[in-house]
Structures are given as C-alpha cells and as structure tokens.
C-alpha cells in the first residue's frame, strides 16, 4: 500500500523509518564488448526506481551487471552451468538465435506480456518474429543491426558511372530495379575493365551473411509449425550456385574462405573491391587500424565519401531486396523472482534515449520506430540513413538445429568455391550431412 498523504506531506524520512525500503537486486549479463546493453539496464533501473518512488512503493531495484569475455560457445556453456547451480543472471543478453534452446531447456520464461506492453508497441513488427518460438515471445528485443552491401564509389566512377547514378544505387536496389544479376554484371565489368581487383568480397568465415542469399532466392530455413529446420533444396542449390558462380568468374579472390579478417578489411579499404557484403560495424573497424595504405585509419566521413551502402539486391527484377540481421534480446531466467519488476525494467530499457545511446556507440540499429526518429540517432552520419533497412530485414531461425545446419552449408559453399564439387554434387553431399547431423530435426523440401 502506498500513502499519498505521506508523500504529499513530504515526510519521506519518516516513511522510510517506518517501512524500510526493500532493495531487489537483479543481475544481468552480456557478452563483451558492448557494455551499453547492460548499462542501459542500470539506467532503466534508475528510471524505474524513480517511478516506484513516485508510486510510493517500498521496493527499489538494483541492477548488477557483468560482462563475459569469450566466444559465443563459452558464453552459452557458462550460462548452462550457472543455471544448473542456480547462479545464472536474472537477465541474460544474447542473440535471438538462442531462443530455441533456452526455451526448450527451461532456462528462460516467456515474456508474452511485453507484446501487449505499450513501451513495445512501436517495435518493428518483423522483429517480434526473431524472439518468438513455439508461439511464445521469449525475449525482449534489444537491438538489431544492418548487414549492407558496401559499394566502392571510386570504382564506379572509374567505370564511368555518373555521380548521380552512384548516389541513387541504394534507392534502385530498394526498388528492385537493380537486381542480383546486375550486381554480378557490374562486378564482372569492374574486374574486366581493371577498375577493381575483385568484384565481390564476402566474409571469410562462417556467419549469418551466407543465408541472405538463401532468403533472397526465396528459400526457407525453419518451419515454425513443425519446429524443424528446413532443407530447401531448390533454394539451397541456387544459393550454392551463386557462390559457385562468383568464384568461377573470379569475382572473388582465390582462397577467400581461408583469409584472415584484417586482410579483407585491407582489400576493401584500399579500394580493391567493388562490392563488399559487410556489416555496418565495419566502419568502426576501419577507424581502428591502419588498413588504408596511405591514410592509415579512416574515419566514418571518409568511408561515407568513398563507399555507399545498399541492401542485397533482389534476385529477380522487381523483387524484394533483402538484408539480414541478428538482433539481440534480453532473456529472463526461469528462476528469476520478481518477474513483474523485471518486466517493468524491460519496459524502461527500450526507451528511445537508451536505445540511442547504445546504437550510436556501438553501430546498431534501433528496434522501435521512435528510436529511429531520435535526433541523436538521425544525426549520426553513418546510421542515420540506413534505419530503413530494418524493414527489409530477415532473421535466422532461433532453433537449435540451425547451428549444425549453417556449418554444413558453409562447408558446402567452401567446396563449390574451391571447385571441389559442383553445386549439384555439393547439394547431394549436404543432404547426407544434414540428415546425419540433424536427424529428426530436419524436414527436406524437395
């Protein structure tokens, strides 16, 4: 019960003497390096405490934060073990892709309330999918990012593109006027004309980007009805063929899949590549080390002068361009008490101000429309113009079986790029592999 009288009388100290304030400690853990993910929880707690105070409740929240340094696997494993011994954090920050096993293992509790919550009302609808599993919402979406295609403006200029053509490329892509075939064609041209050393560059190690192409070719990865990973043979074949083709045409450097990240960055920054399937955070990367042969570290202004960012062009004329993101979410341990308080905390943490702090500092995209409109965000030279990408975004399945799936596909891509297998052969081998790895978690779509 709360006594407005007391509050009105401003007799705070007396009230506290009568009823000691109970402090609830909520623990939260996130992986390095983005501390803002948990720091925002602390800020949200302050907001909540104010609110509680106003409400006159004798309860306050304290958020204890903790960062984890290590690989993803280590992070997950630690959580599992911590949970077993009752030492897990109340709020566990992880990528949405973990929803499946966290839910299945009984590690987390559903947060369906959030969907009704006002604070979450303007979340981009598509993002809810990322944290929905078996019909429930399991996590509070925290951030998302953009994986754009970078294009080198200088190379296009050298190829005779006009300034206007160059600047309008993202728009054309967005409208489906510039397709994947166009991209291949331009890349080929760039290489043959000598304007670029390579037409295309993609990541050298396994990662979500490879599945963009699958979605782009209309493929499907997950069947929520049956809760199974889908092996969409037709789309996968197209996906493999695409990666086969760019290798065959020498659009990508030989041995790309065994290269080291820093060298990828060097190639991009030094203007050797026309199209780079990257991530928005790369801009930050390029300011960290002297990748550029003459300039050394390059700042975002320089990047924006020399590079443009666009969606992945649609596979067909008029089709929908695409991108993929890997949103993070706050998960709540199923052992956590004070769920109500936690929910209220999560409602505060999505506040546009807090989001913006995180987004600007760590190159992430907002998850709500209001945050996308935040002035600080809009003012950011790199982020301001790409918020739209969230609308075109897709996600990986949040099913546990995706990990082995993506591994197997990556190996298949490796095989076709190295010319060891044709896409068809690779597809066949992939099927065998997937059946072995996923067994009853797999449905095959002929």
């Amino acid at each position, binding site marked *: 019960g709360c006594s407005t009288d007391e509050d009105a009388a401003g007799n705070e100290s007396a009230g506290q003497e009568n009823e000691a304030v109970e402090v609830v400690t909520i623990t939260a853990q996130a992986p390095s390096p983005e501390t803002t993910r948990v720091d925002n929880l602390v800020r949200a707690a302050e907001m909540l405490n104010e609110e509680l105070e106003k409400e006159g409740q004798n309860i306050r929240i304290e958020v204890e934060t903790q960062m984890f340094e290590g690989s993803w*696997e280590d992070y*997950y*494993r630690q959580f*599992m073990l911590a949970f*077993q011994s009752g030492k897990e954090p109340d709020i566990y920050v992880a990528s949405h892709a973990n929803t499946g*096993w966290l839910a*299945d*293992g*009984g*590690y987390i509790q559903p947060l369906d309330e959030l969907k009704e919550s006002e604070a979450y009302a303007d979340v981009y609808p598509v993002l809810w999918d990322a944290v929905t599993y078996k019909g429930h919402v399991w996590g509070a979406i925290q951030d998302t990012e953009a994986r754009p295609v970078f294009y080198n403006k200088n190379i296009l200029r050298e190829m005779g593109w006009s300034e206007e053509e160059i600047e309008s490329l993202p728009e054309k892509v967005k409208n489906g006027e510039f397709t994947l075939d166009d991209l291949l064609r331009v890349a080929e041209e760039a290489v043959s004309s000598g304007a670029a050393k390579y037409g295309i560059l993609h990541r050298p*190690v*396994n990662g979500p980007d490879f599945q963009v192409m699958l979605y782009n070719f209309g493929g499907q990865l997950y069947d929520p009805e049956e809760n199974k990973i889908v092996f969409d043979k037709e789309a996968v074949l197209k996906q493999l063929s695409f990666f086969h083709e760019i290798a065959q045409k020498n659009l990508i*450097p*030989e*041995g*790309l*899949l*065994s*290269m*080291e990240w*820093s*060298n*990828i960055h*060097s*190639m991009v920054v030094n203007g050797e590549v026309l199209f780079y399937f990257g991530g928005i955070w790369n801009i930050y990367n390029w300011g960290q080390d002297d990748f550029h042969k003459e300039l050394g570290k390059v700042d975002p202004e320089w990047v924006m002068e020399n590079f443009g960012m666009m969606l992945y062009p649609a596979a067909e004329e008029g089709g929908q361009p695409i991108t993929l993101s890997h949103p993070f979410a706050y998960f709540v341990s199923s052992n956590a008490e004070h769920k109500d308080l936690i929910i209220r905390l999560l409602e505060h943490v999505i506040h546009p101000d807090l989001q913006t702090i995180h987004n600007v500092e760590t190159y992430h995209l907002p998850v709500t429309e209001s945050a996308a409109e935040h002035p600080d965000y809009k003012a950011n030279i790199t982020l301001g113009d790409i918020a739209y990408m969230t609308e075109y975004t897709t996600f990986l399945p949040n099913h*546990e079986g995706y*990990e*082995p799936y993506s*591994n197997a596909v990556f*190996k298949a891509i*490796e*095989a076709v790029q*190295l010319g*060891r297998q044709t896409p068809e052969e690779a597809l066949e081998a992939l099927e*065998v*592999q997937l059946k*072995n*790895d996923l*067994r009853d978690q797999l449905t095959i779509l002929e």
Partner: protein
Amino acid sequence: MEKTHRFSLYLRKWGLPAFMLSPFMILVTVFYFLPVILIVVLSFTSMGSAMRWDFVGFQNYRFLFEDPNLPTILTNTLIYVSFTLGINVLFGLTLALLTTYFIQKESIGLFFRTIWMLPRMSPPVVYVLLWLWFFDPSSYGVLNSIRELMGLPPTMWLVNQPMTAVILANGLIGASFGMIIFSAAIKSIPQDLFKAAKVDGAGHWSIIKDIILPALRWPIMFVTIWQLLSLLTSYEYILLLTNGGPGFDSTVLALYSYHKAFQFFEFGYGAAVSVVLVAVAIVLTVMLWKLFGMQKIERGARID
C-alpha cells in the same frame, strides 16, 4: 605392545608413500578420475543443451559409427597425430641436442631455446593469427606480399594444404615441450660419461646414440606417449587455424567431439566421441609402452 609395534611398522611402510601421494591422489581422483567416470556415463545419455540425463543406451555410439564423415575424420586423426608427433619428438630432440649438446655456450643455447618457446608462450589466438597473416592467400598475406614483390603468383597454401599447416603449426608448439624436457635431461647426464665416451673413441653421433639417447629413454618415452595423448585430444589450434576445414579436410576426432559438444551442445554425443578417442588412446599407449620396453626401464627402489 606388539600391536603398536606392528602399527608403527605399517605406518612406516605406508606412511611416507601415503603422505607423498595423498594430495596427488585426492586431486586426481576427485577432479580427474571421477569426471572420467561421469563422462563414460554421460556417453550413454542424450544430454543436450538442456543438460538432462536421458539414458539412451548405445545410441550415441550408433550415431557415431553411422556418421559418414567418420572414416575421413579417423584418417585425419591418424595423419595429424602421427606426423605432428614425429615433429614434436624428433624435432624437439634435435633442438635439445643442438642447443644443449652442440652449443655449449649457454647464452646462445638459451637464445635459441627462447625463440622456440615463443610459439608456446604466445596466446594461441595470436599464434594462429600469425600463421594466418603469413600464409593468407590474399596479397596482404606476408608471404604473398614478398612473392608479389618478386613477381611470383600468390600461394593458397592454407587452402591446399590445410593438414600440413595444422601439423606444422602444432608441431612447432609441441617441439618446445620435448625440447625443454630433453634439454633438462641431457644436462642431468653425469659429465663423466661424456668424457669416458670420448676417450672410448665415440664421435658425436655415437655419443648421441649410445650415451644421450639411452639416458633419455624415460623422457623420450614419456614425451612420446604424453604428446600422443595430447595430440589425440587437442583441437584448439586446429579450431583457430582452419576450424577443421575446408570441408572435413582437417577435422580430427577431438575437434569433432568439441564441435558436437560445445558448438552444437550435444554433450552425450560429444562424450561418446571422447570415449572412443580414449579407447584408441589406450590401445596406442599400450603399444608404445611395449615398444619402449617400459617394464625394463622401471627399476625398483634400492632402499629396503
């Protein structure tokens, strides 16, 4: 009286060994032996990310033996272990001989030994990064930069020879293990013996073969078996260097176990792979044991 006497005798016979061994035994039993038993039990469950002990009999083993990649992985394991072991032991021995026997000047020996310790001292990630940077197939790879300067085409060494790379990278690290132990053991040989051998007409080769190697029998056997087991169970550098690829070209059993257990969180399956690994290891160890005439090296205490 008689009883207390018996007791004190008993204490004397067992007291010291018990005292000297108990910390060791307790630690090993609790944190090594018991876990091993648990692992074996675990291999009969389908424990996954939910960490539930659901017993499934031999299912994991069945899956393992049905795995289409098993032959490749086993072959890889064999190649990886035998070649790396060869490098570890032989090269380690060579280094030890070179830096302690041939190079008598302490500071020079120390210099070279330190250099060879560097791979082991560097953080694995960084060590692997060095390899990746040097052998990167792009023109930014250090070797390729040099080749480019000399007008040579870039190499794709890591792609074409993933196993060689894995073996070499691991071999260099393992060699320092042998190097240190052998060096210390060589230095423990009484100087008198070298003198006597020289007088008896022994050249360098003979001193190495007849004096040093026999004296190193124990360390060599130990390093060989130990490294064999280490290699069988090692995956860290492979994981970082090639992650087993391309394809399964450089995947070994241990890495596979790691992938299963900690990437895909199939703990039960991973445990089963480990158990198979251990079975292989035991067979190989016993073979090596026989090969080295272990029983013969072992001699009893000379105090009654």
